[in-house]
């Protein structure tokens, strides 16, 4: 079908549908002309939700349209992601995915209803929250080196807590275990709150979790942190060494969050959205609020759609062997 025929057909469809079908060039130029729905596959108030709200709040100003956040929970975020994959690819339905929904889910859920690479257009990386190695406050080891020796010596006695299968704390702990070559028992909890409660109460020995949840507990002295799994120390916990400093450079983990659009969204629309993301990440207030959460803002080179595509590819490659071995 030539261009004329296509636009005729779409014009016909537009009349049928009352207002218009969106995939034509002209409409992509005018984008956005109405409200945008941003699906967040986790509960309101969680780390991904908070980051999505901070960034989209600024993006809405740039784009001149309201961005409505819709929290859809269930099955580790895969329910919502599957829904977003099937949404109209006109740029009016987006999703804020993360490490779990767009990488770890591939090996975790054999019957996944979507594929992070094949069903989505990467738009832009938002911010990541570093993973910490945390332990109950009276666990004997004083630093990461002692902790590693302790875990190896007590592999059959020690308990690791996590916030449920497929959660960030679960998959990052599995990565730690595969780096260390150990298989201690993992005790599942329903979410980060109960897992943290058990750690504070000393019912379990250690866990890996996102920095947002742990900073106040560490500062309050109810739990302790051995290391942060990022290349640099985090400003909110300046005394906690990185895994590289502490002698475990192989353990690098960050719960990254990024915006995706359904496959086939026009490149012009993706470019406009990406520009809005980049602009938001350069804004002083946005930066300040993200840093307050302990999150890491990606450098300029990592903010392009192509860079996000590469990240997703690399992350799937990174998690697949780790999590396949567990199942």
């Amino acid at each position: 079908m030539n261009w004329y025929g296509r636009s005729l057909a779409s014009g016909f469809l537009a009349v049928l549908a009352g207002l218009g079908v969106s995939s034509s060039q002209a409409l992509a130029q005018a984008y956005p002309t109405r409200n945008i729905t941003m699906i967040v596959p986790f509960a309101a108030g969680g780390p991904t939700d908070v980051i999505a709200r901070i960034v989209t709040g600024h993006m809405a100003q740039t784009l001149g349209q309201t961005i409505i956040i819709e929290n859809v929970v269930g099955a580790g975020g895969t329910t919502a992601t599957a829904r977003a994959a099937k949404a109209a690819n006109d740029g009016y339905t987006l999703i804020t995915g993360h490490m779990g929904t767009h990488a770890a889910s591939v090996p975790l859920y054999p019957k996944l209803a979507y594929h992070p690479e094949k069903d989505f257009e990467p738009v832009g990386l938002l911010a990541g929250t570093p993973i910490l190695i945390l332990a109950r406050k009276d666990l004997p080891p004083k630093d990461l080196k002692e902790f590693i020796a302790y875990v190896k010596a007590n592999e059959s006695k020690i308990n690791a807590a996590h916030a449920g299968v497929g959660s960030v704390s679960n998959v990052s702990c599995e990565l730690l275990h595969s780096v260390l070559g150990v298989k201690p028992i993992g005790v599942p909890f329903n979410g980060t709150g109960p897992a943290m409660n058990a750690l504070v109460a000393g019912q379990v020995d250690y866990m890996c979790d996102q920095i947002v949840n742990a900073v106040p507990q560490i500062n309050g002295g109810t739990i302790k942190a051995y290391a942060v799994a990022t290349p640099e120390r985090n400003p909110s916990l300046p005394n906690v060494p990185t895994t590289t400093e502490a002698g475990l450079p192989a353990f690098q983990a960050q719960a990254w969050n990024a915006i995706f659009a359904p496959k086939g969204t026009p490149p012009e629309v993706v470019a406009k959205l990406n520009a809005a993301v980049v602009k938001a990440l350069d804004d002083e207030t946005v930066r300040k609020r993200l840093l307050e959460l302990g999150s890491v803002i990606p450098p300029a080179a990592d903010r392009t759609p192509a860079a996000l595509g590469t990240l997703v590819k690399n992350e799937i490659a990174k998690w697949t062997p780790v999590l396949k071995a567990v199942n």
Partner: protein
Amino acid sequence: MGDVFSNLGLGFGVVFQFVQWTPAFLGGTSIPIPVNILLCLIGALVGTLVGVLPGIGTIATVAMLLPITFGLPPVGALIMLAGIYYGAQYGGSTTSILVNIPGEAGSVVTALDGFQMAKQGRAGPALAIAAIGSFFAGCVATVLIAVLGAPLTKLALAFGPAEYFSLMVLGLIFAVVLAKGSVLKAIAMIVLGLLLSMVGSDIETGASRMAFNIPELADGLGFATLAMGLFGFAEIIRNLDAGGESDRQLVQNKVSGLMPTAKDLKDSAPAIGRGTVLGSILGILPGGGAVIASFAAYTLEKKISKTPQKFGRGAIQGVAAPESANNAAAQTSFIPLLTLGIPPNAVMALMVGAMTIHGIVPGPQVMQKQPDLVWGMIASMWVGNLMLLIINLPLVGIWVRLLRVPYRLMFPSIVIFCSIGIYSVNNAPTDVIIAGIFGLIGYWLIKHDFEPAPLLLGMVLGPLMEENLRRALLISRGDWSVFVTRPVSAVLMAIAAALLVLTVLPALRKKRDEVFVESEN
């Protein structure tokens, strides 16, 4: 003690804060506005509305309204969200009593006697006593949080998986006690509820269990879906059997006083007191304590009552005790959040989210770092409870008048409200169909004298029980003796065993007499 007063003083100072409002049209004259009081009122009103509408639960509402609070100052935002939370506890009892639809796990037992009272034309006293009991419990719990919040935190930490498992076993025994008919059938219903709660994904392996590849079942059956089906739809279908309408007319003609009599108050006062104590203690336990508060209170009342046969047939204590326990637990469940920064349930997790968005991440130091926030919230609870009492008592008259709407108009309306409510939880049409199926199942169950309440409780407790059992066994490396060697767990198990014996033995002996009593009705 002096600290408590100065802290509460600070709290009330925050609540009664006035903000000068200088609108342009007044030409520079400023009006003082009590912003936090207004936010508390809005929260309480919205909460009541949400509680009254079947299907729309507290979690969904707080999640929905969370974004609205972003524009508010943090203290005001949290006061409003807290208002929604306990407002919904007040409102939730309304549908339980009027139309036998419990909106939340906490009001399942309220429906047992509350709806019977309504059938006997005593909806007014039932609603009023629920509000009064809730208010009393709210006041006591607020003081408790202020005075003993920090030391009580230790209780929350003393409960590990083994203790929770034992608590849940005890909870299931409570569920047997609250059945009024055959004990065997009640146990079967509990087990059926446990079985239904297994649908979904396994906590340890993530394996899909009995979900038949239906995406809506991947996370299990929702409480609201099941409750609307088994109580709401099933009740409607049953009422549509011949004679439903005339039955209803009978009810309407019988409506007696709106307010409880002196005898009602005297009967329910001790029940309110005991319910408050039980609820306050259980509410502190994160992850499931508050769920069993209401029926623990109901069971206690039924066991110590001189006339246990009245329970399930319109005993006012059966409304007063669980409602007080419910509200006390709702209040004290703030303790782990305020002292540890750990959210004990889904609603509290959303409150943490609200704080995080405002740049406050609650932790063990939140009381020292944000005293105005913490004490402002505590003071607002008391103010909110007072407001709710003032809102709810006059509403009783309106609700009771609603019962006079002819049933032929009432039932399609309930169908619509329930359908919208269920749909709105996940925006999933399949959930509405599932509720419809459970409506038919519920109709069949009622026809065969199976009670739906124990089923619902089994459904709520099932996951908590299984998860904690598995956690406890993982931590103990398969050693089952942890349940009796850990002191708290052993005490709970002993109570459960004693209660079971007390329930089953007389039931076996009295079986014949009871059949006789039933047939005389």
